[in-house]
């Protein structure tokens, strides 16, 4: 029985008068990849941020790794958050640090005692450096250690941010619009990295996107370690669940086949049959 990684039960998120999420319920299980689609302002980013307590739910229940997070103080969430890798929309690399320090940041600031607020007593610098190099090699940016984020292209920034997100090998990864604003070739590269991470480290993931092509890749391809390319895989579809948000409400949840056969006009707009 797969373990529950993230569970939303009737979650509503309200900002003043605006309801960003309305009565949303779903469960993300170990090994699954969820593709969250929706128009701009439909609550996709809020959903991701609420999942790790960056935004607070006004009502409902959220469980991360089977631990309820609402009502917990910020400090009490730090240990849980360290088990989640997050890719923010524009990468959110720290401007003042070079790529090496950005990727190494989660490794160097890891806590060793739950809830104690203490940093790891001893950081093995050689192991840390090796892991930074490994994470950057994974996203094919191994030569950019000393570059500053401002010196990277949009796609490279996104890849460096993926390296930071996976540096600690977290079991759960959240990607917020990983391909937004990128050209088709770079967008494919980013999605290929997300699939590679899923298949190499067996991670559970949630990918927020407005591009159906992104979900289509995740649901139909796997990473082939022999040639480093994506190859068709029929098994991937069963572990890829699509979710569609409309004005904060979850209006669809299901596998790709069900999504493509949906008669809902809003859902149909997101599904392109090339």
């Amino acid at each position: 029985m797969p373990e529950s990684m993230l569970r939303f039960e009737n979650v509503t998120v309200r900002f003043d008068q605006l309801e960003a999420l309305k009565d949303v319920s779903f469960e993300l299980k170990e090994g699954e990849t969820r593709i969250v689609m929706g128009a701009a302002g439909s609550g996709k980013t809020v959903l991701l941020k609420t999942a790790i307590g960056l935004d607070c739910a006004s009502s409902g229940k959220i469980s991360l790794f089977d631990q309820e997070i609402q009502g917990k103080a910020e400090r009490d969430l730090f240990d849980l958050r360290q088990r989640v890798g997050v890719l923010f929309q524009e990468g959110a690399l720290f401007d003042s640090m070079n790529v090496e320090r950005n990727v190494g940041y989660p490794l160097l600031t890891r806590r060793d005692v739950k809830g104690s607020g203490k940093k790891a007593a001893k950081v093995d610098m050689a192991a840390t450096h090796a892991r930074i190099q490994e994470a950057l090699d994974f996203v094919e940016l191994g030569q950019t250690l000393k570059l500053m984020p401002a010196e990277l292209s949009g796609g490279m920034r996104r890849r460096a941010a993926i390296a930071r997100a996976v540096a600690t090998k977290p079991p759960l990864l959240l990607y917020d619009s990983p391909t937004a604003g990128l050209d088709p070739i770079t967008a494919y590269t980013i999605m290929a990295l997300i699939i590679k991470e899923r298949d190499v480290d067996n991670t559970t993931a949630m990918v927020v996107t407005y591009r159906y092509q992104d979900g289509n890749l995740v649901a139909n391809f796997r990473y082939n370690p022999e040639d480093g390319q994506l190859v068709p895989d029929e098994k991937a579809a069963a572990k890829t669940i699509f979710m569609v948000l409309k004005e904060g409400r979850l209006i669809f949840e299901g596998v790709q086949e069900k999504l493509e056969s949906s008669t809902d006009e809003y859902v149909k707009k997101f599904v392109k049959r090339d």
Partner: protein
Amino acid sequence: MLDYFKGPVQGLQDFTTLAGQAIGNIWRRPHYWDDILIQMDTIGVGSLTIAVFTGFFSGIVMALQMGRALGQYGQTERTGEVVSIILVRELGPVLTALMIAGRNSSGMASELGSMKVTEQIDAMRALGIDPIQKLVTPRMIATAIMLPCLTVIADFIGMVGGYVVSALVYHLRAHQYWTTTWQALEWSDVVQGLLKPFIFSFAVSLVGCYYGLNTTGGTQGVGKATTQAMVTASMWIFVLTAIITKIFVSST
């Protein structure tokens, strides 16, 4: 009517919470010593020129004005006394703090504001790091250490400026100027002159960080936060100096 006060009351509550957390973090691990040192360099060493410039010219202007006014009563030789008292008690702390607010409150607001709108603050929280501990507390500690130091330097340079004017314009001898300057100061003046910048430092750093962390609305919001931080910190400096001066005047 109640809605009109809702915003300011909410703002005051948020600011108080931020200040409480930033101060509480002084006794809480982890401590980001490298960030404190970097901020001390940025705020202290980086603002040295501006503090020296402010102190020197305020000393010159003060000596020019006071020398002429005292000359009417035949007391020109007491110029150093007046310059030192006004500089140490009031103008040194206030002018230095205003310059540092202009340079650093706005700098903190724009830096943290940019981090906020580009989701770097959220990224920090997602990595399990408290942004207040990592960003606000080091800036607060660094300002609390460096602002009194800068004020002492500005005070001394101001006295040097006063001496330049006294020697060149009013032909006072060095011994005459520096003796009255030194003897005019009492311990309460020194305490007041150091306590003020220490208290102002919290307004300078916390106001800058508060506006930075509450930035909304993209790059336009960063510009707005920067201006608001500088204006609010400057206003707080005037309010605080009035309160502290009243306390010292009443007690001496």
